[in-house]
């Protein structure tokens, strides 16, 4: 029987912050509810200051909800034990610069109670996963932004969590590093790890997420399966390869003869700037 406990369950989350002056309350999150099933990749999107990071911090117990509850695999997220199942990568992470990549992973692994050969194997496995084996003994002070993000992702995965929370995982990373992180998320999804990410890079969210929530001014304004949310119900797309102009003319005529259907547009589909960049910079890539 499938496990009915959701990976994440946020019910009516409200978070107020006191402003410095006049002690006025600022409502950062206003009644947000999110349910993420195990194995899903959920993207929370919204503009800066919309309450994404506060929602994530409440889920991690870094801030206490003013009202509502947050649970991870059924455990109240204010309990320390709930974090046994969670890996977290904050936005723009800065790890201890005096540690090397391997030392960083060992430090976080030991915090999770790992020791000896299990930890040593895990460190090697994760460095291979994030493609940082060659930099394992280099201090983080010499890492690039993309490498820091990847070591951050590795530390989040060190105790083999069932839930991964990523706050702007590709912020400030170049397109190659960004794609590596995106590919890692795909790998994690294949392994059945639940991913909860927030970003304002909409194209990336669209590529990796199954479910999406749009948060604005602290409120959830739209939520659902990505396919359902972005499909234009009254339109149909046909993409042809090597179609002759005659064939296109025939199809156009056929549509013109239809009493209900109307041709919206024809033309050549365009690649994205990111794909073009990657094709030109990584020529050995398929």
């Amino acid at each position, binding site marked *: 029987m499938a496990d009915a406990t959701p990976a994440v369950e946020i019910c009516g989350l409200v978070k107020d912050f006191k402003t410095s002056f006049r002690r006025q309350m600022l409502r950062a999150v206003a009644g947000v509810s999110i349910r993420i099933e195990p194995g899903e990749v959920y993207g929370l999107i919204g503009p800066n200051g919309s309450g994404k990071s506060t929602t994530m911090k409440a889920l991690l117990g870094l801030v206490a909800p003013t009202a509502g509850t947050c649970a991870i695999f059924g455990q109240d997220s204010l309990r320390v034990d709930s974090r046994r199942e969670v890996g977290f990568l904050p936005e723009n992470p800065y*790890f201890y610069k005096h540690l090397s990549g391997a030392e960083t992973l060992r430090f976080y692994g030991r915090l999770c109670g790992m020791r000896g050969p299990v930890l040593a194997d895990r460190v090697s496995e994760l460095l291979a996963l994030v493609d940082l084996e060659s930099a394992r003994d280099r201090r983080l002070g010499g890492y690039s932004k993309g490498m820091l993000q990847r070591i951050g992702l590795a530390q989040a995965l060190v105790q083999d969590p069932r839930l991964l929370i990523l706050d702007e995982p590709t912020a400030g990373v170049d397109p190659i590093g960004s794609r590596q992180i995106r590919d890692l998320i795909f790998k994690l999804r294949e392994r059945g790890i639940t991913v909860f990410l927030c970003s304002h890079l909409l194209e990336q969210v669209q590529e990796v997420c199954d479910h999406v929530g749009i948060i604005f001014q602290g409120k959830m304004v739209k939520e659902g399966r990505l396919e359902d949310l972005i499909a234009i119900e009254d339109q149909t797309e046909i993409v042809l390869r090597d179609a002759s102009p005659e064939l296109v003319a025939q199809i156009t005529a056929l549509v013109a003869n239809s009493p209900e259907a109307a041709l919206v547009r024809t033309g050549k589909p365009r690649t994205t700037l990111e794909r073009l960049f990657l094709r030109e910079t990584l020529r050995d890539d398929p």
Partner: protein
Amino acid sequence: MSPTPVSPARSNRGSHCGRISVIATHAFTQLVRMKVFYFLAVFAVIVIGSNFFDLPQHVGPEAAGTNVLNSIKSWSIGTMSLFSVVFAIVATALLLPKDVEDRTLYTILAKPVPRIDYLAGKLLGVLLLVFVSLALMDVLMTVVLQIRTSMILSGQMEMAHSRGWPAAEIASLRADILRQGPNASLQGAVWAVFLRASIMASLALLISTFSTSTLFTSITSFLIYFIGYFQADARDIFLESGTAGTGWVARTVSLFVSLVLPDFHLFNVIDAVIQGQAMPLIRLWELTGIGLFYAVFYVLASWFIFAEKEF
């Protein structure tokens, strides 16, 4: 469907002691890699330099050379006191805000790490470094003092024998010189220096849980350190307030100071040891008890604030 097998990486829950030792070891490494031990070179120069502070004296030939031993002890213990208190305050005041600013604290608290483990680990890391530094300085001081004591002792014994002093006076002279050399009381004084630094580190930890900057934490800690030397006066005002007719403000402040701050006057025993007096064992136990009490008290108070803190 069969239950999901528990990954070996997830199977171990870890213990409080394990996590505290990981954080303490890391804080120690972090501080060592800030090249703190370079200070030991400065200390070595001070200890060796203190050998040459042979000031003119107006004492008899039986006391010749002992002022150099006093000078070595005075400079060494003085430097140890300064280093340990400054380092305990500044390092503790630096570590916590740095983790918040760099957001490394998020990644630590997002792991199954109780906040008390984090605080205790950071404090122990600082104390471990202060302890190791003091131990190394102590070894250096003891070696220099031992060599110098042996030199003075042989010179004085030669002088006493050549002048035909009676055996009892020679033995007394020998005892006087050895009292100024390295002994158990001197090690007790170094331990007292460590205890005073531990109290200050714990206090700095408490302040840094609600302070917004390293500078504020450091300055406030140093102020409290100096106020601690008036703790005994505050206690006297409180105890005598009934007869002296002191106002309620003075009574409240004196009660607060006498309860919350340790009486640093008790640590003046360090100066007495430098002058060659013995430190009673009971005083050492008393200082250890006070150090432990205030360190635990301040850590628990820090936890009380830090547990509610939002990031």
